[in-house]
């Protein structure tokens, strides 16, 4: 017998280090689940992954038509469709992870009750799917950039950092909601609200300077507003770099780690309760 490892199980929750080691040990499951979900999502569809393009595309048309064309909102320096799409990329990425990540536990409840695996691989697999879909949506940006003659800034090298910021924001919400929603599902009902109204508090389709200057700080408090501004800053050198993004990033990372810490302590109850 090759695998002679001894597993010890007691009432004590795993140490935080073991928690991460366990996720690492089961990392292949992240890919397996992501692949499964992608296959299932696009099985029995004619255009498959093409649907991933359609969602930002429709949003792009609607926003451009109403705000760009009918209301002729100004977005200085950038063509309005490019402005909206660059905002949507970050927002959709966030919204997919939050939505599918928080409902993922319920979705996999049958599996959770029958086989052991670290539950954290579920939101992480959703992150992987979000990355795939983001990659596809980025293809949409290219013809737009060519058409409007928009150049990409050298600051695009910071995009991975912006993406991590974006990811941490989303996962932080997923982990905290999960630890509170596996017993009582009320918080899950909050998710659609958060995602419907959140977009209005983030400069996805409006420019941040339509707010009166004395209220501009409100946007600074919203991590997703920062993320979306950071996206545009990195892609097009649009707006100014703000140190508050860095401060905010560390706060969100701390929130994510504490969320994972609580998640680890509660994880073994999931199978009894969901």
């Amino acid at each position: 017998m090759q695998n002679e490892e001894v597993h010890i199980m007691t009432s004590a929750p795993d140490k935080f280090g073991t928690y991460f080691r366990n996720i690492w040990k089961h990392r292949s499951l992240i890919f397996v689940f992501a692949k499964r979900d992608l296959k299932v999502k696009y099985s029995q569809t004619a255009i498959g992954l093409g649907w991933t393009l359609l969602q930002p595309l429709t949003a792009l048309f609607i926003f451009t038509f109403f705000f760009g064309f009918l209301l002729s909102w100004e977005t200085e320096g950038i063509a309005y469709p490019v402005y909206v799409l660059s905002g949507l990329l970050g927002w959709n990425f966030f919204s997919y992870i939050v939505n599918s990540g928080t409902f993922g536990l319920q979705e996999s409840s049958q599996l959770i009750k029958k086989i052991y695996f670290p539950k954290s691989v579920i939101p992480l697999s959703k992150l992987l799917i979000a990355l795939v879909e983001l990659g596809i949506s980025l293809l949409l940006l290219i013809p737009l950039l060519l058409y409007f003659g928009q150049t990409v800034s050298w600051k695009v090298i910071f995009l991975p950092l912006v993406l991590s910021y974006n990811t941490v924001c989303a996962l932080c919400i997923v982990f905290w909601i999960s630890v509170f929603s596996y017993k009582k599902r009320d918080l899950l009902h909050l998710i659609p609200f958060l995602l419907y109204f959140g977009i209005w508090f983030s400069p996805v389709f409006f420019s941040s300077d339509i707010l009166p200057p004395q209220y501009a700080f409100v946007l600074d408090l919203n991590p997703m507003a920062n993320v979306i501004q950071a996206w545009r800053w990195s892609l097009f050198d649009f707006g100014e770099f703000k140190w508050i993004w860095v401060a905010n990033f560390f706060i969100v990372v701390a929130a994510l780690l504490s969320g994972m810490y609580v998640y680890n302590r509660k994880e073994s109850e999931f199978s009894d309760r969901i």
Partner: protein
Amino acid sequence: MSPEIAIKIEHLSKVYSLRHPQKKEDGTVVHEHWALKDVSFEVKKGESVGIIGPNGSGKSTLLKILAGITKPTSGKVAIRGKVASILDIGAGFHPELSGRENIFLNGQIHGFSKKEISEKYEAIVTFSGIEKFIDEPVKNYSNGMYLRLAFSIMAHLDFDVYLLDEVLSVGDIEFAYNISKKIDQLKKEKKTLIIVSHNLAEIQNSDYFILMQNGRIKSINNKANILLDYSEKAFGKNSVEHIYSSNCSRTDFSHYKTNDTIVLKKIELLQASDRNENFKSNKEFVLNIEFNQVDSNQEIYPILNIKDLDNNTILSSAYFISKQMEIQSEQGNYKWTCIFPANLFNAQSYKICLIFIKSAINDRNLLSLKNEIEKICVLNDVLIFKPELINSDYDYSELSLPGNLFIGFEWDLEYTKLTT
């Protein structure tokens, strides 16, 4: 933990808090339920343990803790090696994915690498017998195909410890037969098995038994006591047990009453051979049928049908064709014996079905045909067996020769050398 111990359980308890507190008769309110209370035992490598007990006795909770799905409230478990938790056959299958995709998905969920699964892939598909549909989504599978595939995956991947929860009760008789064969094989391979069931037959061949009741171990390793204890409490009447080992196929009926006419006791198929040898086509089979006749003045006799797994009748037999004999008609214990000749069966699965006929004796002087004949009981699929197609030197089973029977006709050869 010493290296020969596979599982060590110390003072294991598990409490569930109730969502709706229950009021007891004496007025106290109960907020929690002790699913397990101070359970301790050890399992050595290569041992098989049968855990039995009524519903709600804590068997499944124990398995869930061993599988790591839930944590104990107190106590400690140590398990050595890779654990297969087969708490539900087909858990982790996704209906939208094809059989092929599900093989890989399931294997990977159980901790195997893609490469390890690829190596077993052919064997899994062949064993499941659904090559033709392997690229169809499993939602289009019949229940039987689904179970066969799921079981085939678990049977071919290589674990150290197997946790099985009521696996024999999910499928049809053929499925149960395949699983019990597989369990026998795992035992021969010296795998550690924990089998949970509320059906005694399922755990028959375990090395030792644990009887659980109300979250506690009630008795351990005392087969006779456990069987007695359990069969009285949990079974009661109308219980039927299927028992399969390699050269004996038996169904025990404890008080299975049919039409107030007979009480079936036991139906078994045997072959004179060493234990742990498979049924062989080149030997005689002995079918024993035991029952008690309850009322008198009836002649009761069985008619035998042997069917294939698709329910086509292959042959029938009854005593009156081969022999004229007087049948008793009074109350009492009856044991019929039927010998199947050697060199008759092919290497495939057969089901034994029995029809019990009664003819009332109205007038001894009349021919029995004129008496009223009535079917009193039809036992479908009472036994299943699969012989090896064999002669004294060689096993021909692998040839998969066609035909429902493989009969030893007389063959002769005359040879003359060609003269040029």
